[in-house]
C-alpha cells in the first residue's frame, strides 16, 4: 500500500512538474521561430511553414498534450539548434552521466562510511584529522576540486586523461575516476561526519556498554552492535546525497568536458534550446524522484517502524 501510494505521488509530481517546465518554456521571451531563422530575413510564408512544422500555432494545452503524449512514447521532439532528435541526443549522453553518478556513489559509500567508522572508533589524532578534513572537504565546491585534481593528476603528473569519457569499461573507469572523486568529495565529507557521530552514539548506548560488560569481545560488539545499528541514520544521508549527485554532476561534467547529460544541459541553457532543456529537466526530476523513492523504501525495509509511521 505504502509503495503504491508513493508511486502514485511520484507520477503526480512528474505530471505537474512537466506542466510547469513546459509552461515556463512557453512563457520564455523570444519566439522559437525567430530563434530558428537566426536573424536572417525570411518571407512570412517561410515563417508560417516553420510554425506549421513545429506546430507553434496550436493552442497551449493542445501543444502540452501532444508533447506529453509524445514524451510518454519516448519521443522528445527535435533539438532547435541542430535538428537532431532529442531522444537520440539523450541516449548518447546518458551512459556517461550514469557511470559518473554510480562511480561517485561508490566513492561516497566507501570513503565516507569508511572514514566515518575509523574516526568513530579511534579517538585522538585520527579522529581529529577526519573531522577537520570533513569540515574543509564539505566547503570545497565541486568545480574547484575538479580543477585542482585535473591540474595535479592530469596536467602535472599525467596519470589520468584531461578530458573525454573513454570507451569500453576499463578506459571509461580510468577517464571518470577524477570527475567522480571531485563530485563525491563534499558528500563523502558529510557522510563521514554523520557516520562518526552515529558510531559514537551507538558506542555509548546501553546495549553496547552492556555487551562489553558481559565480556563480549570488543570486535564483535563493534561489528554486531555498533556498526549495524549506526547504519540506520547513515543510509538515509547516503541516499539523499546520491540523489543530489544528479544536480552536481553537470558542473563536474562541464569542468572535465565530459559528454554527459549535464554538459548537454549547460550548452542547451546557454543557447536557449528549449526542446533539449525541457527533456533533460523532466528526466532529471524523474531520476531525482526515483532515487528518493528507492531510498525511502530501503529505509522502510531496514527499519519497519517507518512504513507504519508514514501510513498513519
Amino acid at each position: 500500500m505504502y509503495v503504491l501510494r508513493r508511486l502514485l505521488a511520484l507520477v503526480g509530481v512528474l505530471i505537474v512538474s512537466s506542466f510547469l517546465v513546459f509552461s515556463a518554456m512557453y512563457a520564455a521571451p523570444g519566439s522559437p521561430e525567430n530563434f530558428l531563422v537566426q536573424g536572417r530575413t525570411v518571407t512570412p510564408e517561410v515563417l508560417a511553414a516553420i510554425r506549421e512544422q513545429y506546430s507553434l500555432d496550436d493552442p497551449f494545452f493542445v501543444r502540452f498534450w501532444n508533447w506529453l503524449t509524445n514524451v510518454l512514447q519516448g519521443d522528445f521532439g527535435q533539438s532547435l539548434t541542430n535538428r537532431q532528435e532529442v531522444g537520440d541526443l539523450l541516449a548518447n549522453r546518458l551512459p556517461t552521466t550514469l557511470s559518473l553518478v554510480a562511480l561517485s556513489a561508490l566513492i561516497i559509500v566507501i570513503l565516507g562510511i569508511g572514514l566515518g567508522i575509523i574516526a568513530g572508533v579511534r579517538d585522538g589524532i585520527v579522529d581529529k584529522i577526519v573531522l577537520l578534513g570533513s569540515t574543509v572537504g564539505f566547503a570545497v565546491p565541486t568545480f574547484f576540486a575538479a580543477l585542482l585534481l585535473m591540474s595535479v593528476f592530469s596536467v602535472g603528473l599525467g596519470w589520468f586523461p584531461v578530458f573525454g569519457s573513454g570507451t569500453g569499461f576499463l578506459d571509461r573507469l580510468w577517464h571518470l575516476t577524477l570527475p567522480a572523486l571531485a563530485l563525491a568529495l563534499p558528500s563523502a565529507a558529510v557522510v563521514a561526519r554523520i557516520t562518526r557521530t552515529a558510531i559514537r552514539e551507538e558506542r555509548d548506548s546501553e546495549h553496547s556498554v552492556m555487551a562489553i560488560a558481559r565480556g563480549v569481545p570488543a570486535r564483535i560488539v563493534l561489528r554486531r552492535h555498533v556498526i549495524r545499528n549506526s547504519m540506520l541514520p547513515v543510509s538515509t544521508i547516503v541516499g539523499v546525497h546520491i540523489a543530489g549527485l544528479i544536480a552536481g554532476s553537470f558542473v563536474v561534467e562541464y569542468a572535465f568536458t565530459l559528454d554527459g547529460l549535464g554538459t548537454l544541459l549547460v550548452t542547451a541553457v546557454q543557447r536557449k534550446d528549449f526542446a533539449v532543456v525541457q527533456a533533460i529537466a523532466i528526466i532529471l526530476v524523474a531520476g531525482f524522484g526515483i532515487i528518493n523513492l528507492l531510498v525511502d523504501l530501503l529505509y522502510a525495509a531496514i527499519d519497519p517502524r517507518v512504513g507504519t509511521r508514514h501510513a498513519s
Partner: protein
Amino acid sequence: MKRFVKRMGPLGMVAVGIVLVVVLGAVLAPVIAPYDPTVGSVTQRYLGPSAEHLLGTDQAGRDIFSRLLWGARSSLVGPLIVVVVTAVFGTVLALTSVWFGGLVDSFISRILDLLFAFPNLLLAMLAIVVFGSGLSTAALALAVAYIPYTARVIRSTALRERNLPYIRSPQLQGIAGPVITVRHLLPNVAPLIITGATINFGFAMIELAALSFLGLGVQPPQADWGLMVSNGQQSLQKGYPAESLLAGLCIVITVAALGYVGEKLGGRAAAGRKA
C-alpha cells in the same frame, strides 16, 4: 555577547573573525583595492607577487588582489539575496500554514512538495533559460529552491508551539491571528531562522559560484570568485595557478568558516537539510 563568545569557542571566534574580514574587504573594496578590477594592461600579464601587485596579475594583466576584493562583493551579495528571500518567504509560508492549519496547511505543503522534486541547480538553470543569465536571476531562483527546506523546519517547530498556552490564551482573548503570530510565535522561531540562514549562506555561495563557473551567473568582466576560478582555468594549465587557486581558496575558507559558525549555532538540521 559574552554568551556568544562562549558558545563559539576559540576556533569558532577565528571563524567569526574570518567572516568579518571577508565582509570588511567587500564593503571597503573601493577604498582598499589598489587597482580597477576590470581594467588590465597587456604589458603586465602574469606578473608574480610584488609590492606593486600584492598577489600578481591575471592573463589580462588585471590585479588579482583587487579582483578578489571586488569579487567578494558579488560573492557575498548573491548568497545574501538568497538567504533573505528564503528566510522571509519560508517563514511567512510556514507560519501561515501553521496558524490556519487544515486546508491551507495541506495546500501549502503540496506546493512545497512540488518544489522539493526539483534539484536546486536545475531549478536555477530553468529560471535562467526563461529570464536570462545574471546574478539576480540565479539568486532568486536558488532562493525559490531553498524555500521548502526552510519552511519545513520552521513549520515543524511552530506546530509544536502553536498549542502551547502562551499562544492559545491570547487567541481565546480574541487577539487577531497575525498579531499573535508576529508578536509571540515569530520570536520563538527566530533563532531557528537565523541558524538556518547561516548554513544556507554557505550552500548558496557554492551553488552561485558554480552557476558563475558555468557562465550562467555573474557575467565577465565583472569580478566574482566563481568566475575567477573558471577564468583562470587556462592560465592554470599554462602554469600560472594564482587566479584560480586564490579565488577557489577564498570560497573554501569563507564557506568553511560560515559552516563552522552555523554548526556551533545549532547545526545543519536548522537549515532543513538532512545533511
